[in-house]
């Protein structure tokens, strides 16, 4: 049994969904097994720690450098793409982006769209937008196809259907497509493939994402393993690429280390099966390729993150998913618990800029700050540091101007006073020592229930003497006490 997330409505109830997910043994096993495998694959893909660290440093510098001149690069990108015959469209909001895509399809009187895997199109909820306007938008990535068939959202940015095992997919194909049940993965893939092949030939428009947009040459780079990306971008007469403004890099040379970081971090692959470099529509002397190519560049809150020097690092992300693969929280609760397009650690730091922190007020707290995400991030986004920053923004006085959209959602006068009290205790040595004295002398009176702590632990009982006491006595005896 898997969780169903309403496609249009977000609820801020992270804890409720987490509780549900934690109780789902099958879901937890699916994630644990899959994440273990992905962690092992990544580790094996970087056998040389020095090489890995050097590459991460380079990846960070390329992305940070690109972001530092983002407006110029975007201008250059538009110019070069236009020269190459690719039409560039700008969208500040997802509504604008959806409108643009819809207009392009309308102009061709299209009714069928086939889509390669694209997280930005998920961000736009493009499938629903087009469906409401009578346009069928079919996912062609196998994982995306599965979640679309089951009316779900992806639970992972690279492996959308990772929350399901073969038996669950088999049942889905049986229920929805009338196929005989089989747990043979190859047979399942063949079932999906039969449906999709036909659709590639019938589609009026192909939609894809973009991994890197190269400013100097006006090239859109797309990596994938199933060939569906190539089919979606070449078979239909129109190709619409959608991407975020942060995907631009200066030149093709920059792409080499970034692709290596991306594929090794994501799936432990030296390179993906397909690397598509899209540099324009079909030329008069060419036999195939789309007649029209469009790029929709989406902001959707990214400029908000860009404006904050610390938060800007969020935009380094190359969407490899390594942070969620290594996250002990994500592994246990799964992607749907986050109730958002981007789950896991990267989702926690990027969603506030898109939806507003008040839409996801529990997300910054849903981390032990263990640092596993930051350790593996290929472009060295200091995710734990940014989560800590979001916790600060979360508890700010909502009456004050906010630095992050929707800040102050967790403001609590009571909690503020508790921390003031804690501060007083820890800045007044006499008070602190009195507290130690009382807590150790009256340890028998320690409460048997201590809020949520005793849900998982025995009640904490202070020691008979504090270290302050023991150390003073010991150092007195040894004559080592500081003067």
């Amino acid at each position, binding site marked *: 049994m898997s969780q169903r997330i309403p496609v249009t409505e977000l609820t801020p109830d992270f804890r409720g969904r987490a509780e549900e997910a934690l109780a789902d043994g099958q879901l937890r096993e699916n994630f644990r*097994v899959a994440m273990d*495998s992905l962690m092992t694959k990544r580790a094996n893909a970087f056998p040389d720690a020095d090489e890995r660290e050097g590459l991460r440093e380079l990846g960070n510098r390329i992305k940070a450098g690109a972001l530092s001149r983002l407006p110029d690069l975007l201008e250059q990108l538009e110019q070069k793409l236009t020269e190459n015959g690719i039409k560039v469209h700008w969208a500040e909001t997802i509504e604008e982006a959806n409108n643009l895509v819809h207009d392009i399809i309308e102009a061709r009187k299209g009714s069928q769209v086939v889509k390669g895997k694209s997280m930005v199109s998920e961000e736009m909820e493009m499938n629903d937008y087009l469906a409401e306007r009578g346009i069928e938008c079919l996912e062609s990535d196998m994982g995306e196809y599965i979640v679309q068939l089951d009316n779900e959202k992806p639970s992972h940015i690279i492996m959308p259907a990772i929350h399901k095992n073969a038996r669950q997919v088999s049942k889905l194909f049986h229920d929805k497509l009338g196929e005989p049940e089989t747990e043979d993965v190859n047979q399942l893939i063949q079932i999906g493939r039969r449906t999709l092949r036909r659709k590639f030939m019938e589609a009026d428009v192909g939609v894809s994402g973009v991994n890197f947009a190269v400013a100097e040459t006006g090239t859109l780079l797309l990596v994938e393993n199933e060939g569906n990306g190539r089919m979606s971008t070449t078979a239909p007469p129109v190709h619409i690429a959608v991407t975020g403004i942060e995907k631009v890099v200066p030149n093709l040379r920059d792409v080499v280390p970034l692709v290596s970081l991306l594929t090794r971090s994501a799936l432990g692959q030296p390179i993906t099966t397909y690397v598509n470099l899209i540099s324009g529509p079909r030329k008069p002397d060419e036999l195939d390729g789309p007649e029209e190519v469009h790029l929709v560049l989406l902001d959707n809150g990214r400029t908000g993150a860009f404006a904050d020097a610390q938060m800007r690092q969020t935009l380094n992300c190359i969407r490899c998913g390594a942070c969620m693969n290594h996250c*002990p929280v994500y592994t246990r609760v799964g992607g749907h618990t986050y109730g958002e397009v981007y789950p896991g650690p990267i989702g926690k730091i990027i969603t506030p800029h898109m939806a507003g922190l008040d839409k996801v007020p529990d997300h910054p707290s849903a981390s032990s700050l263990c*640092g*596993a995400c930051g350790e593996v991030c290929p472009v060295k986004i200091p995710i734990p540091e940014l989560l800590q920053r979001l916790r600060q923004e979360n508890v700010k006085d909502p009456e004050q101007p906010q630095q992050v959209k929707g800040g102050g959602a967790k403001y609590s006068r009571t909690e503020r006073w508790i921390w003031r009290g804690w501060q007083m205790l820890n800045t007044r040595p006499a008070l602190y020592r009195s507290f130690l004295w009382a807590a150790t002398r009256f340890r028998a009176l320690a409460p048997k229930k201590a809020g949520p702590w005793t849900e998982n632990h025995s009640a904490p009982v*202070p020691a008979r003497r504090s270290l302050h006491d023991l150390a003073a006595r010991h*150092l007195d005896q040894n004559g080592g006490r500081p003067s």
Partner: protein
Amino acid sequence: MSQLFYDAAPNATRVSPEREADRHYPEKSEAVTLFGTCVVDLFFPEAGLDAIRLLEREGVRVHFPQEQSCCGQPAWTSGYRDEAKAVARKQLDILDRSGLPVVVPSGSCAGMFRHHYPALFADEPDTLKRVEALAERTFELTEFLLKVCKVQLADRGAPSRIALHTSCSARREMNTHLHARELLQQLEGVERVDHDHESECCGFGGTFSVRMPEVSGAMVKDKTRSLMDSGAVEMVTADGGCLMNINGSLEKQKQNFRGRHLASFLWERINGASAGEVA
């Protein structure tokens, strides 16, 4: 597609790639300040005392300023910057009085001094200089014993199998996750066994354990299970927070298995008995 990954080998024990600490270590000093940490102070004071004894055994005089309290981490990780900063400033003043190297029997509090104090005081150039000097002279207990004191431990205990839990801060902030291993290797009668998902967080995370008890509880349950399944008779760790979390969960589960602070374990092994008990 998810199914493709089910045949892959299970990740039995993932340990972060071993890195040699790139930190430069000074000559052993005559004296140090012990920063006890609030968790050790109240719940594991014997571990603090054993840390003092281990340091004294190396000929290092230990100062324990009675004015010290908490490093400020709980407020900092909860987003209460001003409150954390006030507490941090107080500790900085106290620790600056002697200017001695600071030894901390907990990776996360040492990490707070070394990595988060500079972030807290980034807007105060003068204080930042003092904070950076503090970061430079802060050592986690295991690294001070191993790298600065170059300790040699002679084991006098009976043969034993133990599991080692390394805190995330020791692993990722202090880069000291291999130091405890090296110390344990010096003990002839001690066999350290790996446990499943050894490098994974125990689920404590300070206030995370009470803000997200569902998730935190699932994490510590998995951690205690893998520790008990490892074949070890007990667990040792150099971090008070993890110890409180893991032992509290084991007790709640009514298990006999327990963890101990590394300082107490080492002191007992080299003396043949625990001397950390209150007289």
